């Protein structure tokens, strides 16, 4: 009979009218975030050996690692993520051999100013043992510092401004090791 579906519809909305509501009053109450949630990154600095695997695994060249040679060992001075370009795919966390890089459950990464967006996980001075290492670091200032040696070739195209995408076209033959 015509009209049956119309009445059925009204019945359903009437039933829903009294059904429990699902709204979560966000800032006051929050959903529980699952274990594997892809939130803000945390780096266990003590475990990290600055190998650069994560930077290499990243599809969008988000991670930049700065390190200096202190004595015979590499010392990480900076670990920055341009989080505005991050895809939160988790490939970096997966690539970490030392279990140093993790996701946290913190999903609130908004910033008031654009310049505050990049996520700085490590920023510290290198211990000043061999003096001659200090100079290049001071010269570079806030600019990018030389990349870890083994990957210097792979990383270079990513660094200078506005060259990333130019390189992308030729990248396949250049970087195909």
């Amino acid at each position: 009979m015509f009209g049956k579906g119309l009445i059925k519809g009204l019945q359903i909305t009437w039933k829903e009218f009294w059904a429990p509501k699902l709204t979560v009053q966000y800032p006051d109450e929050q959903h529980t975030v699952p274990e594997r949630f892809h939130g803000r990154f945390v780096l266990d600095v003590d475990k990290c050996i600055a190998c650069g695997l994560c930077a290499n695994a990243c599809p969008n060249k988000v991670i930049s690692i700065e390190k200096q040679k202190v004595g015979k060992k590499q010392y990480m001075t900076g670990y920055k993520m341009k989080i505005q370009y991050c895809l939160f795919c988790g490939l970096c966390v997966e690539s970490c051999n030392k279990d140093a890089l993790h996701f946290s459950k913190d999903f609130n990464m908004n910033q008031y100013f654009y310049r505050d967006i990049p996520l700085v996980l490590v920023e510290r001075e290198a211990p000043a043992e061999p003096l001659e290492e200090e100079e290049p670091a001071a010269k570079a200032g806030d600019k990018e510092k030389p990349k870890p040696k083994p990957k210097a070739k792979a990383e270079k195209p990513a660094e200078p401004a506005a060259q990333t995408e130019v390189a992308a076209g030729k990248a396949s033959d250049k970087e195909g090791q």
Partner: protein
Amino acid sequence: MLRTQEYFLNFGPQHPSTHGVFQIILTLDGERIVKGEPVCGYLHRGIEKLAEARTYTQVIPYTDRMDYLAAMLQNLGYVQAVEKLMGIEVPERAEYLRVISGELSRIASHLIGIGVNALDIGAFTGFLLCFREREKIMDLLEELTGSRMTLSYARIGGVADDAPEGWLDRLKKLMDEMPGYIEEYQGLITGNEIFQARTKFIGILSPETAINYSLSGPTLRGSGVNYDLRKARPYGVYDRFDFEVPLGENGDCFDRFLCRMLEMEQSVRIIQQAVEQIKEVDGPVIGKVPKVLKPPKGEVYHEIESSKGIIGYYVVSDGSNKPYRVHVRRPSFINLGYLDEMVRGYLLADVVAILSSIDIVLGEVDC
């Protein structure tokens, strides 16, 4: 003398029902459509070009960004193509997890499909109730993969992670509830006479044209063509499940809508079977894959059934660790190609019904 004049109407890109980034240049005679020219490309990001500068694994997150409503199916198509190229064996447990997450994605995508269809015709409540259930699926996927929409769950050779503890039970519980929800949508949307009046015998697509124009997915099956790759050419472990392929009769908007609705029921059935079968399968979720993926020189074309239709990946390898060329056959893109002929002769209000019955995702159209 009375003289009528045709006029143009820019339907979009700033329009509530063109999904944000799509334009149809309509030529109208009164409210009747004379011609409708779809204009896309507003969301073009050049994913195919980007893929050429990424390693094989790094392409996976980009495939998410195409059909972000059913991201797992996009992942799956790509990784299976690369696996075919390299001849990698996938562990059985991973295959089951792929099926489960893929079908969950399919249900989530179809929920949006039917919800948006209802919304475009004016039933807002149906849309939000669909979102309510989709949210539950998103929660489950979030537990499994860590992300809600852009899952990046599939890996070449398996999946990223095994199911967390108790996840399969929660999944089973939701799947047991699902038929009840589907019945609610059937009552609220499908059974509604106004909805039927708006969609029946609108945008009719004959099986011959549907095949000729390479349409796929529910758009093709709504016309009664039995072509579901899960059945026609089973990939993965799909040959182990018992399910049906719902078909339409008239090839109108209503049939396409109903196909999605019934497909959700079948997806629920597949997941239920997969949850039963996965219990017997133990082992790793990722196969033996070299650290640096360097497929042999060659090319491969692999296609799977996504929620929108057939998604195919054409991958060319030059022997390096980066693909020489990746091309994606995007179902939304090809389904949209026939829109012009489909809307001709119908009213302005029908354009919306037809457009949403094709169920496009602009991320996929524009790639």
